[in-house]
């Protein structure tokens, strides 16, 4: 408990992330206006009680669009991290626990992939599979596997010769049982902080790709896409860009602080 008290980053990170999650959840079920409904009378409408963040070039309510975009971005990030952590843990567990030749080979491939800017790889994937919310999630998810696998492998490698594993082995527990019942729960701290940083990277990647127009496609709204729309009207309505950009930045800030806090706590 003492550790938690001095860990400001964890608190602030959890607070920001919590609010963002809440907003994203709200965005999936309720937005004040239809995020795609256009109102020609409200083009570039300024901040008012009706539209708390004003309106965009088509007269769409910016706050509703931010909520919807936030939930799209979050769901892409969630899918990405789930794919990454699931397969990453599986690969990491087997390579770390058993070692040997498969470990060598997989880790070399891992190194090659990790040495590569993920944006570039994502672009290759998207040019093969085509853009869209689903494809972006799959592409990013696959790209995240090596990173997760490396960290989880380290954890399994560290734990496999500890006393509790030895005694479980003496009691006749099978390898699979040791890996997933005994070791896995002990990797939770590290896994959580990795997941948080994974969210951070996923949000950044999705926003970047949608910004370039090769990520999430309309009618799905996404923060990155909105930011690229906002750029066209930067002079007329800078508020649009600021609100959208700040939302992305806050998401990333929240996850980064959460991850650091968890790491410190471990």
């Amino acid at each position, binding site marked *: 408990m003492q550790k938690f008290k001095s860990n400001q980053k964890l608190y602030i990170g959890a607070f920001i992330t919590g609010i963002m999650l809440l907003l994203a959840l709200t965005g999936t079920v309720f937005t004040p206006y239809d995020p795609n409904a256009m109102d020609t009378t409200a083009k570039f409408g300024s901040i008012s009680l009706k539209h708390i963040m004003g309106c965009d070039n088509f007269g769409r309510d910016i706050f509703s669009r931010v909520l919807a975009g936030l939930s799209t971005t979050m769901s892409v990030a969630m899918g990405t991290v789930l794919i990454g952590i699931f397969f990453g843990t599986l690969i990491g567990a087997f390579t770390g626990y058993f070692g040997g030749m498969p470990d060598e080979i997989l880790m070399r491939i891992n190194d*090659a992939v990790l040495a590569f*800017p993920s*944006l*570039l790889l994502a672009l290759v994937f998207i040019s093969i599979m085509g853009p869209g919310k689903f494809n972006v999630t799959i592409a990013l998810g696959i790209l995240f596997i090596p990173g997760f696998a490396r960290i989880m492998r380290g954890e399994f490698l560290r734990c496999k010769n500890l006393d509790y594993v030895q005694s479980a082995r003496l009691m006749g527990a099978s390898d699979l049982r040791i890996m997933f019942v005994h070791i896995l729960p002990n990797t939770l701290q590290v896994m959580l902080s990795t997941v948080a940083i994974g969210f951070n990277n996923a949000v950044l990647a999705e926003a970047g790709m949608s910004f*370039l127009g090769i990520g999430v496609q309309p009618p799905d709204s996404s923060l990155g896409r909105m930011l690229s729309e906002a750029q066209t009207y930067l002079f007329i309505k800078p508020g649009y*860009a600021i609100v959208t950009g700040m939302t992305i*930045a806050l998401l*990333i800030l929240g996850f*980064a602080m959460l991850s650091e806090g968890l790491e410190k706590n471990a």
Partner: protein
Amino acid sequence: MKYIGKKLATMLITVLIVTMLVFLAFRVIPGDPVSNMLGTSATEEKVANLREQLGLNRPLPVRYIEWVRDFFFGDMGKSYTYGMSVKSMLASKIPITITLTVMSFILVVLISIPLGIYCAKHEDKWYSKAIDVINQITMSVPSFFVGMIITYIFGLVLRWFRPGAFVNYKTSVVGFLGYLIFPAISIALPKAAMTVKLLKSSVLKEGKLDYVRTAYSRGNSTDQVLYKHVFKNALIPVITFLGVTLADMVAGSIIVEQVFSIPGLGRLLITSISTRDYPVAQAIIAIIACIVIFINFMVDILYKVIDPRISK
């Protein structure tokens, strides 16, 4: 020497694997470039002719070997969309992207190394803590949003540059560099913030080690200990990070080029991906990949220079 040889071999193998993957990736893409070029109403004969002409009929391994050979001799095929040679299309773009990346990298080093050391030295002061907070926030702002903020403040409000009015280096080198400085800052700021943080924690960590105490006990001043002993050791993790960052910035410039309408490799890549102009997309990705692999190789060599203990 043996170390360099080993790293060189690794680099070549990686280049081979990566070019193979890039080549294969562009072969499994759904959608036929031929029907794209001729439209849906083309006769079968026409389609067959064009396939023959583009060499799409031969077996994959043959096409790969030919492609790699031609690629390294500078022949990257013809653009499907423009019918121009890819080489001539890329020739004018590569210097732009490389200049942008190098400028951003220099900025990262110039900002982060002095600031990181300064923060570590004055760790307990309030301003060091204030810099920490600013750092944490700067880190979280994606480069393309920084780019938009810079465009708004310096381009639209203060009018220090005209957004979108890119000056080619052939017209005016000064104008070219002057225009690129703003996108370079956008790429550099978030990366510099990360580097400051890493360098600070690395210096502080080294400062707790025994050799530092010994150095102090021999009558060295703080500055002497810091610059003669700690700095060099603290730099090792930072160099790894800067290597990854440089590689990342090559790719990151793709997005920032879009923000500032810079006609570099990135913009061409995005266009070629959306128009399915594979020879162009493939060549650009292969070039960026090779640059990245080369950077990684140089980082490995640099390690050895800084830390002779590394042998493997």
